[in-house]
């Protein structure tokens, strides 16, 4: 479960949908792993405006990752001006969003307190029918 995906997942319960507390899900007892992938600058640039930076800060903080800058990086900051190569900001973002993932643990909804188990990187979002 990539950190990128964590920035989009909400509680699956219908009653939580409208409640702002249902996002982000808070990782608990999470085990992290780092999987190397190829960098895709255009994709990260496309995703930047869609990221919820406040949620990013909360989640990285709870995962014990280094602190993020206060503001969302701008699209210009992703490319090194002089060389046109990917900048350090882009590399950091790539390693955080695409390479860092939660291997196991729990995701907790702050609204209803439901815990979604994560095993081998797959989160279990199945709900018993009375909770849908």
């Amino acid at each position, binding site marked *: 479960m990539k950190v990128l995906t964590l920035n*989009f*997942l909400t509680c699956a319960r219908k009653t939580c949908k409208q409640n702002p507390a249902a996002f982000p899900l808070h990782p608990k007892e999470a085990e992290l792993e780092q999987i190397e992938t190829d960098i895709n600058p255009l*994709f990260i640039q496309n*995703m930047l405006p*869609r990221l919820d930076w406040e949620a990013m800060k909360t989640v990285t903080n709870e995962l014990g990752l280094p602190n993020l800058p206060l503001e969302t990086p701008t699209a210009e900051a992703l490319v090194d001006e002089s060389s046109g190569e990917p900048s350090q900001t882009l590399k950091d973002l790539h390693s955080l969003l695409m390479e860092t993932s939660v291997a196991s643990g729990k995701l907790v909804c702050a609204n209803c307190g439901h815990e979604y188990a994560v095993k081998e*990187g797959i989160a279990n979002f*199945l709900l018993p029918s009375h909770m849908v």
Partner: protein
Amino acid sequence: MSRPEDILPPDLFYDDNESRKYTTSSRIRSIQASMTNRALELLDLQEPSMILDLGCGSGLSGEILSDVPEDEGGPHVWVGMDVSASMLGQALERDVEGDMLLADIGQGVPFRPGTFDAAISISAIQWLCNAETSDVTPEARLKLFFDGLYQSLKRGGKAVCQFYPKNTAQRTMISQAAIKAGFGAGILEDDPDTKSVKLYLVLSVGGGDVTGAVQGMDGVDVMDARRQDRKRGRDVKSKKGSKAWIMNKKAQMEAKGKIVKSDSKYTGRKRKIAF
């Protein structure tokens, strides 16, 4: 031909054994690959996108999404949802790149609004037409699914769902549910009137025309049901009780998915006066 949908619920039908058979069968793999490529063609993505794969199974379609070359707008990043743990286990063994959730798409789509650029689904949504327990109905599951999907896609986003409806009733039930959720919907039929007919439900967020998706494709005829409806409205209204009026009503009911008696030479005919 037996349908797996009629045998067991998906999470039980695709057990370890069945999932392995499904994933390793070269016939299924090639069919899945061609359908995924067709769906990608319909989505027409220009840039690396975030894609939701509904009923991702063992990631056969996801693999293709991650492998789209750069000059064709890829590689895409995908998140998959599937209800069968064994299928996801197969995906783990094959080391696919996307993230996966063990989730029932009939319970909604747990992502915040505007997450995805596009969604695809290969041979999955016909499973929603089955209710496995007495406390859920197919209609309610379809509604939760399409409402959730509509929310999680960005404005202007598209979804292509390939599915195998059991009959016309299922086909209309699925497309009507999508339209009710707010999608602009159309169905593309590949190889019509053959045994290997493939149906693609093309959905666009923000409603409107989806026929643009097939523009520039060879050998595609567009039959626009909406436009015919509109033209019918402009006609002079036929007299209530007349044959034309009855035929019109029957067509309306059929379009709604109701069971309608087939037409015969007696349809709308006056009875003989007995005395």
